[in-house]
């Protein structure tokens, strides 16, 4: 299958490992990955911070960039959520654009959705010999409803010791600009998330969103816990050398 990568601005700039892993994983599974160069950012930060007008050109760019492709994948539940649930709303003043946005959204998948629902694989042939706990990010969980798809993928990874995260469905406190505008509350939420991660005894905390992992990982690193965060795509892309 020919799959267009919607890399997301955060993974492109700060977490290229997650994006590379997405490419290598899909290629290993026998698919062709293309990277439309005109893409930048889906506009989620602008939309969620109250700047819909500024986000409109970004929505237009996103639609134009990904329109030619039958399947689009992003290693981010949150950005796919914005495409699926916000783009048409931002474009409401331009019905033509809104309709096109809706069509692109219908062909855009978060990585675990693409693997399980579209490509029909749960065992991607990965090997990752670590104790891992999975944090279901809010937008994967409640906006996209990916359910247990990421867990099913992880359960098939050889060598991986999957441990359940207590109070997993509680928000980690990231919330985009929330983490800056309400830094204290965000940190209080993070403290509880980190406590639960540490309680599992895992050495790796994984998720489908680089943004939440940046926040959780930033906290774990500040406290020198020795627990690291790794994007789901990187685990799934790992193989026995």
């Amino acid at each position, binding site marked *: 299958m020919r799959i267009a990568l919607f*890399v997301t*601005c955060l993974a*492109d*700039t*700060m*977490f*290229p490992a997650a*994006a*590379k892993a997405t*490419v290598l994983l899909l290629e290993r599974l026998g698919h062709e990955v293309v*990277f439309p*160069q*005109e893409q*930048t*950012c889906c*506009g989620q*930060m*602008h*939309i*969620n*911070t*109250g*700047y*819909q007008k*500024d*986000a409109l*050109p*970004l929505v237009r*760019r996103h639609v134009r960039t990904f329109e030619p492709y039958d399947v689009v994948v992003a290693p981010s539940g949150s950005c796919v959520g914005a495409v699926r649930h*916000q783009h048409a709303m931002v474009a409401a003043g331009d019905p033509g654009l809104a309709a096109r946005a809706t069509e692109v959204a219908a062909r855009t998948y978060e990585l675990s959705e693409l693997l399980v629902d579209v490509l029909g694989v749960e065992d991607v042939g990965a090997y990752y010999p670590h104790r891992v706990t999975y944090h279901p990010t*809010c937008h994967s*969980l*409640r*906006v996209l409803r990916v359910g247990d798809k990421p867990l099913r993928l992880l359960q098939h990874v050889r060598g991986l010791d999957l441990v359940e995260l207590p109070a997993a*469905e*509680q*928000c980690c*406190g*990231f*919330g*985009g*600009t*929330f*983490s*800056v*505008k*309400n*830094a*204290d*509350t*965000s*940190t*209080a*939420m*993070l403290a509880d998330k980190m406590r639960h991660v540490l309680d599992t005894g895992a050495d790796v905390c994984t998720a489908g969103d680089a943004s939440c992992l940046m926040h959780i*990982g*930033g*906290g774990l*690193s*500040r406290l020198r816990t020795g627990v690291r965060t790794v994007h789901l795509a990187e685990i799934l892309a790992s193989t026995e050398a």
Partner: protein
Amino acid sequence: MSTFLGMPVRAPRGVGHLRGDQSFPAAAKEALGNSQLRRNLQHATTTIRGKSGRVIAELPDWQELRSAGSALKAYTMANLPLLLTQLEEKVTAAGGVVHWAADANEANQIVTDLVARTGEKRVIKVKSMATQEIGLNEALEAAGIAPVETDLAELIVQLGEDKPSHILVPAIHRNRAEIREIFLRAMPGVDPKLTDDPPVLAGAARRYLREIFMRTKVAVSGANFGIAETGTLAVVESEGNGRMCLTLPDTLITVMGIEKVVPAWADLEVFLQLLPRASTGERMNPYTSMWTGVTPGDGPQNFHLVLLDNGRTAVLADEVGRQALHCIRCSACLNVCPVYERTGGHAYGSVYPGPIGAVLSPQLTGVEDNASLPYASSLCGACFDACPVKIDIPSILVHLRNQAPHARTEAAVMAAAAYTMDHPRLYASAQRAAKLARIAGRRGRGLPPPLNGWSASRDLPSPPDETFRDWWRGR
């Protein structure tokens, strides 16, 4: 009924409890440092989430009930003028008197005048959000009338000269030691040997309130539902103290927000299943009191219904925001909210805290008066899933953020960022610049304001050697 031309009125300033003295982040910061508050909230919200989750899981048709509740509310809002007029007719026909209050000041004036006309100097109160919203207690006190809250938690708040911090459990921020202290200090005639054993505390409140119930001739209540078809008002509660107020006095004055009207008696079938399970985690609430006007020889012989707008019509005018009027005040969204669980209700500065407060208060007052509230959420979506009438709170939050006034520097930065993102060349050089800046200068912990909120508690990731884009090009 007053008629309005042009934009409907907002809740007026200087009266009632819809605006805080501080922004949410500032108030939250104080609350977060209160370890007793944190512990109480965590315990209370975790307990109620568990209880509610269990009884909701018993109902195979919970999702259908939610949809029915949502549809009934949408129908009601679309037909509000008609339904309110119908309610007025039915209440009047049953011997009640209906008053229309455009805002908090009018409502307070109407109630104060009605009480003054009875010559009584004290009223007993059923727990009510609407009367808290308009600051009725303060208005009554200013007129020399003593209001006595009879809901146990509301009484604790009143005696403690405190503010409610939860819709349903107003004293959720207090523990039993604090409650004992408040009772010893402020409850007339309390036994000085009072312990902090919960049944003992409840017993003390019961003895105090019984005396008051027997000797007070006027009651003030809110209403959970007002049925247009029959003119029946309904109050649901757990303690029975509300029932005392609704049945013992000669005069009953009910203040009801105009959005609380429901079309028909049969609609209660839906709401009375949704409300107790979502709010207290009970299959059925212990007391459901209903009354239709006046019944000769039984219960209050004078009944007044005050229909309160106070900004609600303005909310109704907003196509996205109007969903907030569907709220049945169950407080499920508070109990599942990770922000509320940590900050408590006072940080929201309004009688309506938590997720519903973050979307309702700014709409009632106008967003400029509560500009920080739409941002008091990580948009995690737990509230939407929990809401028994399916109010899409995250979407309303995003909608209100778009209406909120923005600081000029922030707006400039956001516009510049959007411009950069819309020009791939600029975007690529911004990526490189960000990397260089990181490597050159700020490898340490600090970031300049406002980003120092991030670096105060979180390390920044090490900059990658190349962006994904670079890697792709070099393949």
